[in-house]
């Protein structure tokens, strides 16, 4: 069991972003979180990534307890693609990725191939803040390729990607699942690839209604 949440509540300024989530996610599974705007999808992913902390209830992710485990070691094993993923805006694409590779002790050679795969080779020396919205998303994917995490948390990955980007993303999902990693995606569009059989987690009012 990669994720286990029991009656998880996350409060922010007196407002319950999550209002009691019960959830179990198996290893190497693909999970799609859907729900209306404001239902709590982003909040759920942030909780799973150790980016927000649990207010009450119980939970563990990749074996780390959310209440008194080491959140940093959790974050290290998680990959995150958020609504705004821009990394260091003043560094170039390459510099950002080299920083990540070095930080994780990965070979720096991985960077070039990751950039190649997401199709940013012609922008490799462009400063990140100069990139277009979709290119920034692609950089986010390259970052994840360098990271190779156990649990992938992707917040609306399709947003602002073009067709080629979405195709690439679908391929990537397949590879990732085949490699034994777990994926949780939030999305408003159905997944495009028909080979994948995702589990649907529908969120309503800060809770998950498993279907």
């Amino acid at each position, binding site marked *: 069991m990669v994720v286990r949440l029991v009656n998880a509540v996350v409060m922010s300024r007196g407002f319950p972003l999550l209002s009691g989530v019960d959830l179990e996610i198996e290893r190497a599974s693909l999970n799609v979180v859907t729900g209306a705007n404001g239902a709590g999808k982003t909040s759920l992913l942030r909780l799973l990534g150790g980016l927000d902390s649990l207010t009450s209830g119980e939970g563990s992710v990749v074996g780390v307890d959310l209440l008194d485990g080491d959140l940093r070691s959790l*974050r290290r094993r998680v990959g*995150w693609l958020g609504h705004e993923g*821009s990394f*260091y805006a003043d560094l170039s694409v390459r510099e950002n990725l080299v920083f990540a590779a070095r*930080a*994780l002790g990965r070979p720096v050679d991985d960077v070039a191939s990751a950039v190649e795969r997401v199709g940013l080779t012609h922008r490799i020396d462009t400063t990140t803040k100069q990139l277009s919205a979709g290119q920034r998303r692609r950089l986010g994917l390259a970052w994840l390729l360098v990271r190779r995490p156990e649990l992938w948390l992707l917040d609306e990955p399709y947003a602002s990607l073009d067709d080629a980007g979405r195709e690439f993303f679908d391929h990537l999902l397949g590879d990732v699942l085949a490699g034994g990693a777990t994926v949780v995606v939030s999305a408003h569009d159905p997944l495009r690839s028909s080979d994948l059989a995702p589990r649907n987690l529908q969120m309503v009012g800060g809770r998950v209604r498993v279907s």
Partner: protein
Amino acid sequence: MTRIAWLVATKDLRIEARSRVLLWQVLPFGVIALLLSGLALGPTQVGNSTAGPGLFYLVTLFVTLLMINRSQALENAPGTKASVATLGLDPAGVFLGKALALTLELWITGLVLLGGSVLFLHIALIGTLQAVPSILVTLTTLAVAGTLYGALTRGGDGPATLLPVVTLPAFAPLLIAGERSFSAALHGGALWEWWVIVVVALVAYTAVGILLYGVLEES
């Protein structure tokens, strides 16, 4: 830890070198602030050797605040924060790295401001040169403490204004110690007491930073 520290320090310095904010904005600001201090006190006060070191440190302090702010703002952009958090960098390394980069930047700024002080505030050159080691150590302490306090205030509403409130009381003793040792260098007098204060603070802040920076970063 040292590997991460080095990585973070070079990253910060590279961003700084790219944007040239230090060269084009912070340094001119410091020099102008020195000029203004001279102006604010009026011609009668300047050349008054008690005021010189104090003004130098006062201006250095304001410049330090600007630079701590910049150093923290780098980490605080909405996208950056989440992505970098998932790298799970060793917090002690991050702390040391950011402190190292800030120290270097402060040293450069401090030396330029020192030159400005000699010129505009008429501080004696020889005494000033003797004060350089104590000034560098004080700046190092400011950088280390500033990195810690910067992380403390990061992320709230308007960190740009919260930071000074939190740091100023902590910097007050350092400021006094630095000013005293500078004055002592100018007029002769016991130096070592001030060194003790500054070095103890440096060691204490470094230790606390290495141990507790992780606590600040979490959540």
